[in-house]
């Protein structure tokens, strides 16, 4: 750990500065991360997209599913005004006269929330199971390893397709507590409970199929960390397993999981978009980038700009998640000394 040089205090400075301390791990990592220019740019871009999606209701000029009934309002080019309300269609309208900008912003909110929740849950499950297996070893580890083997021997996309097709078409098949539905309805601005159930089912499926990578990673880390001297020291001082795991093992084993989390966001987003594109995941009228892309495909010959509208934010987010993952990986790498 680098210790910053203590600058000699100038004579005329009256205020006593606090003693310079050794940098914390966090400041070192933050400093290294800031040096990764592309990651910083990605952070800004993501910040902008997040802000837009949080303010979806405020910045979108129309209701999510508002559609201009007049046939003249279909496929309006960008920057035209609605013949019915006079509102501005920043990105034009789609094949049934809905405002594309509004739907894009709502889709950002829905796609990103789905990706974040699914990745958070799968990281959480993976971390817990990986830590338990790596720390306690023995029977617990063997059982968890078998389960991981089982899941990683599945052909992911076909299984994902079939599970989603069944559970999303009839989301009542899995009992989801009402407060979860209410919560999802609130954060995704859904009017209907059914829409929240569909998204909840999809999050559950992505979690179910996504936790094994993190679990394997965490287990490997924990197996290394638990042999280190400070763990033995803690045990010698009488710390119980819970304290050792939460205060010594997890913080030291966690950095690669943070990277995996960021990259996992990109792959959850991809999975959700692909499923929605195939018409099997989240479906109309709920907008997502995937189902918006699916609709534009039919009209791209006459209006080649249409696919770019949902594809561009999708591109930005995927690339940004990956850049941030790379930046974090470099910043968290203990072999780096700077």
């Amino acid at each position, binding site marked *: 750990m680098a210790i910053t040089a203590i600058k000699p205090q100038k004579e005329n400075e009256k205020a006593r500065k606090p003693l310079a301390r050794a940098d914390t791990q966090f400041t070192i990592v933050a400093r290294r991360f800031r040096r990764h220019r592309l990651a910083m740019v990605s952070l800004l871009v993501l910040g902008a997209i997040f802000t837009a999606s949080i303010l979806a209701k405020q910045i979108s000029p129309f209701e999510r599913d508002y559609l201009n009934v007049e046939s003249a309002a279909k496929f309006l080019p960008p920057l035209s005004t609605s013949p019915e309300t006079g509102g501005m269609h920043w990105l034009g309208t789609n094949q049934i006269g809905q405002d594309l900008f509004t739907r894009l912003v709502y889709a950002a909110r829905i796609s990103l929330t789905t990706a974040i929740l699914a990745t958070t849950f799968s990281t959480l499950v993976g971390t817990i199971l990986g830590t338990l297996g790596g720390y306690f070893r023995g029977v617990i580890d063997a059982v968890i390893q078998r389960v991981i*083997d*089982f899941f990683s*021997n*599945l*052909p992911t*996309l*076909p*299984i994902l*397709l*079939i*599970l989603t*097709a*069944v559970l999303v*078409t*009839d989301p009542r*098949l899995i009992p989801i507590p009402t407060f979860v539905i209410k919560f999802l309805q609130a954060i995704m601005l859904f009017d209907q409970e059914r829409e929240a159930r569909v998204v909840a089912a999809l999050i559950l499926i992505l979690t179910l199929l996504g936790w094994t990578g993190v679990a394997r990673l965490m287990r490997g880390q924990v197996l290394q960390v638990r042999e280190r001297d400070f763990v033995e020291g803690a045990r010698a001082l009488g710390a119980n397993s819970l304290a050792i795991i939460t205060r010594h093992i997890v913080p030291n084993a966690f950095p690669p999981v943070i990277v995996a989390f960021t990259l996992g966001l*990109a792959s959850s987003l*991809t999975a959700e*978009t*692909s499923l929605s*594109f*195939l*018409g*099997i995941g989240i479906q109309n009228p709920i907008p997502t980038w*995937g189902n918006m*892309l699916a609709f534009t*495909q039919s009209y*791209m*010959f006459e209006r*080649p700009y249409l*696919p*770019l509208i949902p*594809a561009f934010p*999708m*591109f930005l987010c*995927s*690339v940004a*998640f*990956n850049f941030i993952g790379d930046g974090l990986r470099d910043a968290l790498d203990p072999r780096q000394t700077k």
Partner: protein
Amino acid sequence: MANFLIRRILAMIVMFLIITFVAYNVLSLAPGGPLQELQQQQQNNANRLDAFAFERVMVRYEFDIDLIPRYTRWLMGQPDGPLNLFGQEMFGATQVGCLRKGETIFKYPDGRVVVSDCEVPVYLNDLKGRAVSKGILALDFGTSQGVLRGRPVSEVLNSRIGLTLLLQGISSMLALAIAVPLGIYTAVKQYSKLDYATTTVAFLGSSLPSLFWGLMGLLVFAVLFKQWGLPYFPAGTFVSNTPQTVPLIGVIEPESFADRAWHLILPILILTFVSLSGWIRYIRASVLEVLKQDYVRTARAKGLSERAVILKHAVRNALIPFITLVVTILPGLVAGAIITETIFSLPGVGNLLVAAIYGSDYNVAMAVLLLSVVLTLIAYVLADILYTVADPRIRLR
């Protein structure tokens, strides 16, 4: 080794049974099947159906049989009647299902219902004489219920699998042929111009899904190139109906070899690009890691030529973990191009799976799933065996 293989194959069989059991039953939960169709028709009063017609459909799709016997009938065509031991029929009166559910006796205000016992139970004896497939273990996948109603699933699969094999085979071989040398080269010549160019392209290629690249490829090479009068690729069709005039290339006759190739080039390129990008990044990282190792320094210190150091000492070690990625080509041969096939409307297996899911064609969906499960399982065993071949330090016990 023999011991290891036996254990792995036993584990594979158990995995296979669990996955197929779960998948088969999950699929039978799927709404929108033939029963629901009938129910809707009844509601609309389009076709007035009596209760018996409804039950006939239930029997036809075996919805009246319990999960486990229904699964074993699908798996191996058993039980197809009472157990026959030494000419003696046994367990004929064992209940294996229920044709007509009991009536609701009482409804609690919170939604729970009390149902009387099964009104028309199905016994093992009743299964005698019912049509049953030979079971998937005898490679009889049953008949298609939606995509091509009434045709054997194997026929449907046969008509589709050639295209997917072609797509995935060519694109995987291309990707391998480019990724391995390029990955090694970029690692050896780190920070060269080619390295920067390759890593940037590979980064973009691997951070975005085939969905994105497929659509963008279609937009640029099919839509925009056509408008700009450049040689373009077709979109949304698999074969041309009329002769197509392509600028700079000439006329392409329908259903000629040129026509087939013209339709397949773009999807193959997209598939190649997506798998290529990931592989290059992987190979480059692992060669870079190996080049830092002491034994590479030793090899250099011995005065070996740079060529020998890289090819014999570095690459051979660096490519061992790559085996895990290469074997995923195998399951990919069946259902690895779902998205690309959908974007380019190619009638391959991936497209078939999506159609089967839409049309509640369980037998077809299960057959596709089954093939990819089996190939995935084989691929991982293959990876373990290849590991021992590539790396004599690894012994399987």
